[in-house]
């Protein structure tokens, strides 16, 4: 394929084919997994439903047909951009996912910006004075944050911010009285609900990035040219800039892994704070055995992961010109 095309285009096409293949594989896996589970959307509604109503429901959504037929129907609809009908939310899957994804972005964008800023700043500060008492203290803190399970950290921040300090609400996106508030107070209400989950995610993110920034900067400071730069009479700030620039690439690639994993799986933070984003939606959909919704969510989440991994590879290459020459075609 790449013989008659310009090499960059060939690489891009191959990457697209690869992404499509992985997406299909993971969404199909989720589809099959949920169908193999005992019970379906009919049984998930509980004991109160009459058998006749249950059968009517199954017939209406085609759940009584064999698995292969259901899968092929789902594939056919997917080819037309239709992710199906959510049996638990009573609306198109695309609509439910779109709304939840928007809510997740509310968390992810500020948290990612904070993590990048905080993590790189802290890591640089540490890398420049590696081995000092301050560095060792911060290293311990970042390690502890890194080693805390997400659920535990989210619960801890919730306990501190909403329990002990009682400054912020315990969960949800808005208060019950949100709709009756004047415009300015509505924004304040939103912000208040945003603080704790964003802080939780940013803590994890900046700890992770700081650890990589520190290690990478330390390694860069030991490169041979760092001994040579002072002999040219360059000012220390300029030399530090050169070291920092050399240390950038690995940090960016870690950031490129963090971002998609957040878009796909803020499951625990959203669960702890009852934030109706992608992770929350996914857990609810699994509990209701809503096949179409789960498959759609998995499809979108892996799609995000793959696309951003691709973008991160390009950013990585831009940060390190040596890599631009042989950017791999597959991921």
């Amino acid at each position, binding site marked *: 394929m790449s013989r008659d095309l310009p090499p960059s285009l060939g690489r891009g096409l191959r990457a697209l084919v*690869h992404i499509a*293949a*992985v997406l299909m*594989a*993971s969404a199909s*896996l*989720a589809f099959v*997994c*949920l169908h*193999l*589970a005992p019970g379906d959307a009919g049984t998930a509604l509980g004991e109160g439903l009459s058998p006749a109503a249950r059968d009517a429901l199954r017939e209406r959504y085609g759940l009584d047909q064999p698995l292969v037929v259901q899968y092929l129907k789902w594939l056919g609809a997917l080819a037309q951009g239709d992710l199906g009908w959510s049996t638990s939310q009573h609306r198109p899957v695309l609509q439910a996912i779109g709304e939840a994804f928007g809510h997740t972005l509310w968390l992810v964008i500020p948290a990612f910006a904070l993590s990048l800023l905080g993590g790189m700043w802290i890591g640089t500060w540490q890398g420049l004075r590696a081995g000092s008492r301050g560095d060792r203290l911060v290293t311990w803190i970042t*390690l*502890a944050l*890194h*080693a*805390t*399970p*997400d*659920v*535990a950290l989210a*619960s*801890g921040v*919730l*306990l501190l911010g*909403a*329990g002990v300090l009682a400054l912020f609400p*315990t969960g949800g996106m808005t208060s019950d009285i949100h709709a009756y508030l004047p415009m300015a107070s509505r924004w304040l209400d939103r912000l208040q609900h945003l603080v704790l989950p964003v802080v939780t995610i940013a803590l994890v993110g900046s700890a992770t990035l700081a650890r990589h920034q520190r290690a990478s900067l*330390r*390694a860069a400071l030991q490169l041979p040219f760092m001994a040579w730069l002072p002999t040219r009479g360059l000012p220390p700030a300029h030399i530090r800039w050169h070291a920092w620039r050399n240390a950038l690439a690995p940090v960016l690639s870690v950031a490129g892994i963090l971002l*998609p*994993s957040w878009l*796909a*799986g803020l*499951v*625990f933070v959203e*669960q*702890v704070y009852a934030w109706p984003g992608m992770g929350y939606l*996914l*857990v609810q959909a*699994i*509990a209701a*055995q809503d096949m179409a919704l*789960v498959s759609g969510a*998995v499809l979108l*989440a*892996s799609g995000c*992961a*793959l696309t951003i*991994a691709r973008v991160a590879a390009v950013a990585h290459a831009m940060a390190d010109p040596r890599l631009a020459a042989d950017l791999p075609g*597959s*991921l």
Partner: protein
Amino acid sequence: MRHPSRPVRLFGGLVVVMLVAPWLAPYAPEAQLDLVAQRGLPPSWTHWLGTDLYARDVLSRVLAGTRVTLAVALGSVVLSMGVATVVGTAITLAPRPVSTLLAGLVEALLPVPRLLLLLACSAALTPLSGAGLTILIGLTGWVAAARLVADETRRINRSDFVLAARAIGLSEWRIMRRHLWPHLQPVLAAHATLAVAAAISAEAGLGFLGLGIAPPAPSWGNIMRDGAGVVTTQWWLTVAPAAAATLAMLACHQVGEAFEESVLMVPR
């Protein structure tokens, strides 16, 4: 070289707790003591970490949970490292169609978020037994390790001593067993300790969502689920298992770093 003594001792301590937990625990972990008088009590001298909504002693449950959670974590890592070793070696050494297929499989699975796989599968398989959860966490955790093993075996396979072994006519199986796998051990050990931390986190997360081991059994994740809705009022239900999990994961990270430092010469 720094001897990995302190973190190893810490981790060893946890393993000892895991083994002797039934004798350390002051109460039976699943016993409901007094549903009327002893529900949701805060920490006191009789119940050091309080009691939960079903009047069970939280300290006993956390201690017993050490055994459950660490057994799941260690078991799943043994499983995933085993799969990773086989697949990784096959990617390097197996004949052509098998190796390309496996390499393609690893490339395809690598970017799929593990959490999504875990959630989808555990939802399909609930309620899980301890063994079921171990297998599930193990089978979703081998991909990155397989890639690592493949890279390492490729490197070792090119070295002179392997060439020499081939030259004197040793069988591929013997080369694999006596010359490749022993050299994999340090890299795999460093990776495995971090994988144990990830498995502890996975168990805690799945338990918290109610998708882990079936409820009355105490695991750190299950105890956190008991405290899920009442974090601000009955904080001891969350803090105790969360602290235990964090401590265990910290120990794993420390052991992993000590390994990297002493065996792989990664500077700190």
